[in-house]
């Protein structure tokens, strides 16, 4: 644990990618394979089921530290992280031991599950004493299932590849499913990740392995410059961009595996797709989008009847373990295929897009799979015009894929092969009314905001000002009168400097504190962007927006010019 805590501290302290890879590589060079196996698991996002809820650990920490719960809460407000709060309130009386990460996890932490409360308490107290503050922090994170660190899976793969002298793409492929929780990390699994590669000898248990997903870069430029940046339209395959779950269908040896982009096996959650894939020839791998499709004989999209259903319907399927007939009927899932990665057992990712597309259409001809239609525009400006129909069609914009390009790995540095050209978000000018401090790097800074719109357009600036003065005087709103109505929360989109600026304004303009939340005298207008909007009985405003974020602070905009509920209603109809 000491070595792993040291690695964590190094990764946590630097923002340099190279420094992180070096630290990881050093760690893999020194750590016993059993520990490294778990380190890879945790660092690439693996999360064992929570062993003990962190809130229970907090109660235990209060007991050990001899402090009251209210005082612990005050500490938590300052720290912004439960595990770190626990690590700091515990007295400095440790007698550190050097037990390895694998022993910690396998022989100590996982066995805690299901033990009686007093037994857990007794063991945790003893474990804390074996660790310094850094170790206690990590232990608490691991036990509570909230471990996170600033490295991407890609960096871990790079470091493993450099450590073992194996191609990083191969490591990436072998790592698929490493963190899905189906099998525990072990010396054998770790060694399989970094084993020297013998051409043509398939590793045992590999038959369902998917390929690493190729990810697109966002294209953020006016269409007028596309010709100079991307070249002629004829060099590109243009498809609609769907708002579903990215997935890979693997059919080999008479079996089907469905992987999500989180590299999680989700075959059982989507029996419709499993059934479709059973008809595919062995040695076929498809890349595409898992989505709910609304059949509609009238509406047509490309060659298909119907259109994609809102993401909220797909959401009802995610995370559902038992699928009732009702759910299957209300949210039927389909697979929109857009690439072929393997055919007849051959990896064809190096073949050009044009060829893969041809083969994809041939393979799926006569099956129930949908093949993402290819648009054919005469010019980039023509595509720009077609893209304006995106909302109407229930899609997010266009995907641009170079016709002569191979299928890459991850979001590679080699930009320019796949682009996502998303439509501009919907925007609303709204008023900041509540703020809460952030977590992690943003602990103690007010970064999480609640925004409101006017219940109707203010008749004049004076009317709006009167409402704000009433709020500042903490008078209850007039029934039926003009009001500010909360409708969305957002915590991203501003720079650190802007957050600091807003933080200072919030502190000066605080009206009341409700636990960690402050109500703020309305004074700031923000332009809020979001991807979609739906009715929601669960929200006070009756409206829920998808992926809201702050686009900019409108210091120039007076409060009475912020948008209204009616403006939101109008967006609902788009």
């Amino acid at each position, binding site marked *: 644990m000491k070595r792993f805590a040291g690695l964590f501290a190094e990764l946590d302290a630097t923002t340099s990618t190279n420094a992180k890879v070096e630290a990881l590589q050093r760690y893999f060079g020194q750590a016993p394979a059993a520990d490294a196996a778990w380190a890879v698991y945790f660092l690439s996002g693996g999360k064992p089921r929570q062993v003990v809820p962190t809130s229970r650990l907090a109660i235990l920490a209060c007991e050990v*530290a001899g402090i009251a719960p209210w005082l612990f809460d005050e500490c938590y407000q300052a*720290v*912004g992280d439960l595990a770190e709060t626990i690590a700091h309130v515990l007295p400095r009386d440790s007698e550190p031991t050097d037990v390895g990460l694998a022993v910690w996890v396998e022989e100590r932490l996982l066995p805690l599950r299901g033990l009686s409360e007093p037994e857990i308490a007794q063991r945790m107290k003893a474990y804390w004493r074996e660790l310094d503050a850094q170790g206690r922090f990590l232990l608490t994170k691991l036990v509570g299932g909230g471990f996170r660190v600033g490295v991407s899976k890609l960096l871990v793969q790079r470091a493993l590849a450099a450590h073992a002298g194996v191609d990083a793409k191969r490591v990436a492929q072998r790592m698929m499913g490493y963190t899905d929780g189906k099998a525990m990390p072990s010396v054998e699994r770790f060694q399989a990740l970094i084993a020297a590669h013998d051409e043509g000898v398939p590793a045992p248990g590999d038959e369902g392995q998917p390929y690493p997903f190729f990810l697109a870069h966002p294209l953020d430029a006016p269409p007028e410059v596309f010709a100079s940046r991307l070249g002629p339209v004829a060099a590109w395959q243009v498809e609609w961009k769907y708002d579903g779950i990215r997935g890979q269908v693997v059919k080999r040896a008479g079996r089907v595996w469905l992987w999500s982009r989180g590299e999680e096996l989700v075959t059982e959650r989507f029996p419709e797709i499993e059934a479709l894939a059973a008809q595919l020839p062995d040695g076929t791998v498809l890349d595409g989008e898992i989505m709910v499709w609304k059949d509609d004989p009238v509406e047509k999209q490309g060659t298909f009847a119907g259109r994609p259903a809102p993401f909220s319907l797909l959401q009802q399927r995610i995370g559902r373990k038992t699928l009732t007939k009702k759910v299957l009927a209300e949210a039927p899932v389909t697979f929109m295929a857009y690439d072929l990665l393997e055919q007849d057992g051959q990896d064809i990712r190096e073949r050009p897009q044009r060829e893969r597309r041809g083969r994809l259409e041939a393979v799926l001809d006569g099956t129930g799979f949908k093949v993402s239609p290819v648009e054919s525009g005469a010019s980039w400006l023509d595509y720009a015009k077609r893209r304006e129909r995106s909302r109407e069609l229930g899609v997010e914009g266009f995907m641009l894929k170079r016709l002569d390009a191979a299928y890459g790995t991850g979001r590679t540095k080699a930009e320019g092969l796949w682009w996502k050209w998303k439509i501009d978000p919907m925007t609303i000018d709204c008023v900041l009314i509540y703020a809460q401090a952030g977590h992690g790097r943003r602990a103690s800074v007010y970064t999480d905001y609640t925004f409101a719109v006017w219940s109707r357009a203010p008749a004049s600036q004076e009317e709006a000002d009167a409402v704000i003065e009433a709020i500042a005087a903490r008078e209850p709103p007039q029934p039926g009168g003009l009001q500010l109505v909360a409708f969305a929360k957002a915590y991203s989109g501003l720079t650190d400097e802007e957050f*600091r600026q807003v933080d200072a304004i919030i502190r000066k303009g605080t009206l009341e504190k409700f636990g960690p939340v402050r109500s703020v005298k309305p004074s700031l207008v923000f332009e809020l962007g979001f991807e979609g909007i739906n009715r929601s009985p669960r929200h006070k405003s009756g409206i829920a927006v998808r992926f809201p974020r702050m686009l900019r602070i409108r210091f120039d905009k007076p409060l009475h010019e912020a948008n209204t509920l009616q403006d939101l209603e109008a967006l609902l109809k788009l």
Partner: protein
Amino acid sequence: MADLVVHRPEGLYCPPGDFYIDPWRPVPRAVITHAHSDHARAGHGHYLASQPSEGVLRARLGEIDLQTLAYGERIVHHGVTLSLHPAGHVLGSSQVRLEHGGRVWVASGDYKVAPDRTCTPFEPVKCDVFITESTFGLPIYRWCPDDELFADINGWWARNVVAGRASVLTCYSFGKAQRILSGVDPSIGPIVVHGAVEPLNRAYRAAGVDLPQTCMVTGVKDRADLKRALVVCPPSAAASPWMRRFGDASTAFASGWMQLRGARRRGGWDRGFVLSDHADWPGLMSAIGATGAGRVIVTHGSVPVMVRYLTEQGLQAEAFDTEYGGDGVEADVQPDVEEGGTP
């Protein structure tokens, strides 16, 4: 019986003695606990402070009408017996003991109970009423012993020397800089200090505090020395062109706030060293306990938390609203406020 210290718009005021303690507005008579700028302000008529603080006070405030007392020396003013006792915060820092009509009040200013080679250690003073600071008044703040801390700083510096890059350690120029200088291992490499630090080093050396040899960046003859150097400067300098001459340096910040991961990461420093000249939570509690005071008045920091906690411990606890330091969290967000509190 009337209180010996009350809150006035100008600062904390002693009515029978007709003087102020660390006032934030100009007054005729001021007792100054220590030379940090939020406690020692310009413009008062007459200053009374500890004898060891004379050098640093004059270095910061220039020509002032200053009377000094040795620690423990008593004077009587309008019937109030006043003496100054070491607070262990920075060179010359004092607690102010007031005795009048059989009652004893102590105003602590800022203090630290852990040992510090650059100033006289904190002395517990028995009193009826204790006025305490609360900068780090949460039980998450627990400092590690100096030897661990300096081993950490020395290790960082030595590794940077091997990697061929300068070690830029930013901190408050007065107090913390000197404490760092007195604790690091000068055999690792040369020590360069910023122009804001050097005058205070002079005052410390003049007061008999042993500091290793330091030089200003203009005094470095061999440029290769810059790559091996420990550079001590205020955080504001780290963001200025002054830093460019050190090239690809490793940067660190020394502050009690560095205890928290969020503050460390937000600051963008390569390293955060947890070093404070204030008492940590156990330090605050032991200091308060040692006074034997039944009534405690809390100033700047985690005021509501400390008041509630001390009340639960059976003390009569209340708060004074002062203009010292900053709200801990704000100071945390902007740790580089050079003229202000010293977290």
